[in-house]
């Protein structure tokens, strides 16, 4: 059955009132939420509703009308997070997804939640987004079309190899760059203005 535009774009915002984050025994983030019932297997719901969207929050009545499903507290189990604006707004508009990447809802701002919930969410986000911050560049050598960087990051000293250095550096803003190495690892320099001057001169020509 065709969905209306509102049904398609309906967003559930998670707040402390309708969402309780907790940690599973193995350290993963999980969620109990007060939302319309979520069906794990879409197929069952579709068969029952004759073509409706299981998780739309709306049911079709017998006379063809649409009513919202009743919200209930339910344990959604392990959830995954995804930043909608990873660079501009890292702590806002965070999508909460299930393991099949279906969105349960969105956290408008992390600051809405208490410290414990924030800690759980931040831990999960830190585990998802691995992007060491480069604090210093000890050496940078060009050879055979690759560049070899010896750097200090917030995760210790690292060696980074870039293929085609110019294309491997993405300028997010005037002050923020992200470097992708030959394996696909990412590194960032989030504050070029205050970056170590000696290190900056080593990469200046690539910026």
């Amino acid at each position: 059955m065709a969905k209306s535009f509102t049904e398609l774009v309906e967003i559930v915002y998670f707040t402390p009132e309708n969402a309780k984050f907790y940690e599973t025994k193995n350290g993963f983030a999980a969620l109990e939420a007060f939302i319309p019932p979520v069906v794990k297997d879409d197929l069952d719901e579709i068969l029952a509703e004759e073509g409706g969207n299981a998780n739309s929050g709306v049911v079709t009545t017998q006379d063809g009308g649409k009513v919202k499903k009743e919200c209930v507290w339910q344990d959604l189990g392990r959830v995954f997070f995804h930043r909608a604006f990873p660079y501009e707004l890292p702590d806002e508009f965070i999508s909460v997804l299930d393991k099949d990447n279906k969105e349960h809802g969105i956290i408008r701002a992390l600051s809405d939640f208490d410290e414990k919930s924030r800690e759980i969410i931040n831990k999960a986000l830190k585990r998802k987004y691995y992007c060491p911050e480069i604090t210093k560049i000890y050496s940078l050598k060009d050879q055979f079309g690759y560049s070899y960087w010896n750097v200090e990051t917030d995760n210790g000293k690292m060696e980074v190899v870039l293929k085609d250095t110019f294309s491997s550096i993405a300028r997010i803003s005037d002050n923020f760059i992200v470097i992708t190495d030959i394996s696909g690892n990412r590194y960032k320099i989030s504050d070029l203005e205050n970056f170590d001057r000696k290190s900056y001169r080593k990469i200046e020509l690539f910026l």
Partner: protein
Amino acid sequence: MKHKDFQFVAPEQIAVKNRVKEAIGGDSITSIFEYNLSFDNQRAYGAVALSGNKVFFSEGDGEVKTLAVSDLKDIEAICYVGCVSVEYNDGGELRELCRSDMLNAENIQRFVKRVRAINEGRSFEFDEEEKNVLCPHCGTPFREGSKICNKCADRKKLVRRLMGFAKPYATALVFAVLLYFVTSGLSLVSPMLQAHLIDDYINASPVNVGGPDFSGFYLTVFAMLGVAAISLLMRIIRSIVIAKTGNKIIVALRKAVFDKIPMMSMGDISRRTAGELITRVTSDTQVLKNFITGLVPEIVQQGTLFLAIIPALFVINWKLALLIVIPMPLISLMFFAVRSKIRRMYRRQWHANSNVNTILHDAFSGIRVVKVFGMEKAEEKRFERAIRSSADISFRNERTWNLIMPVANFLIGIGEYAVLIVAGFQVIDGVSTIGELSQLLAYVGIIYGPLRWMAFIPRRLTEAMTSM
């Protein structure tokens, strides 16, 4: 395992991998990979191995643990942003086995595929090798689609193999090299004739009442003309021979490369993109042909010229020759120092221009999308930013080039001024003649050509080695 200052594989990583291998003992290892992150994405060193129906793993200094493959239900490699995690179902609860940055991502996924295949009672679809992005000996990245390390490869063997393609045309190449020698020799003769012309005719004291003997004067001038004409003819013949031979060599090279491709295994072919294979057949063979017919003869010529002129300078005037030779190492170093900066500058410009082309391509090929979303103004602004950036970079490069190169060339030529001063005084004192001075200056001018040229050899050799 080191690459100069780099240590791509930490000793702790090697140690833990060896410990896992020891724990397995003599049994065969189906799959083994390293991982380098802990549960909270801190640096860690660990290894996981699959042997038979058991999985062995260890992290840091911890003991080696084992799990049955059947315990790793619903095992999955989950790709995050910049890292990958292996998770499995442990009695209804998800548990993480290990995680790593992207360096080990492919090996991890291969391991997971194999474990799943065992759990599902399937055989592996095809036997993939553990893939190393970096050379295990020196850490240099392999060129994409290749398993040959640029640094560790036996270059002599590669060059011998390449020269095998030139062997059928050895006569023509030797002839071209001989012509190089002839033209180099002739370039030494002209200054001698000039010196003779100046000293014995133009600047000679009149010995007879009737004036100097002009028949000798005309002979010398015609000799100089003859030398120039022969030199020109030699260069024309050489160019034709090189062009003909080069074309034959490139045909042979391209045929050999193309014939090799269908003979490769499916695994090898699928590891490479169509673009890479095409580049191998077209661009790489061109680079190699230029190496055989261009770079090698030029090295011979420039080297010979350089080695021939130095003794000639010492014979003419050893003091002045020392004055020219001593600053040479410094001048060469200066060129080397400047060379890499200039190369980076122009690579940056290439990228800026490439960015402009990309925007144009996107805008034209996606013009309907642009119009549907009313993005004409946005695309205009994007294009304007790109061309301004390209223009700024171009301007900065030209400015830098025009600051550095004239100064560098001037400094190179400063030897000439030093020679002019010293030799000038010698002429005034009657120790040297004007003809000798002009001959010396001509040789100095000739010698700085090879010097400038040699500064760019390493880059051209590198290109050739990469293509090999």
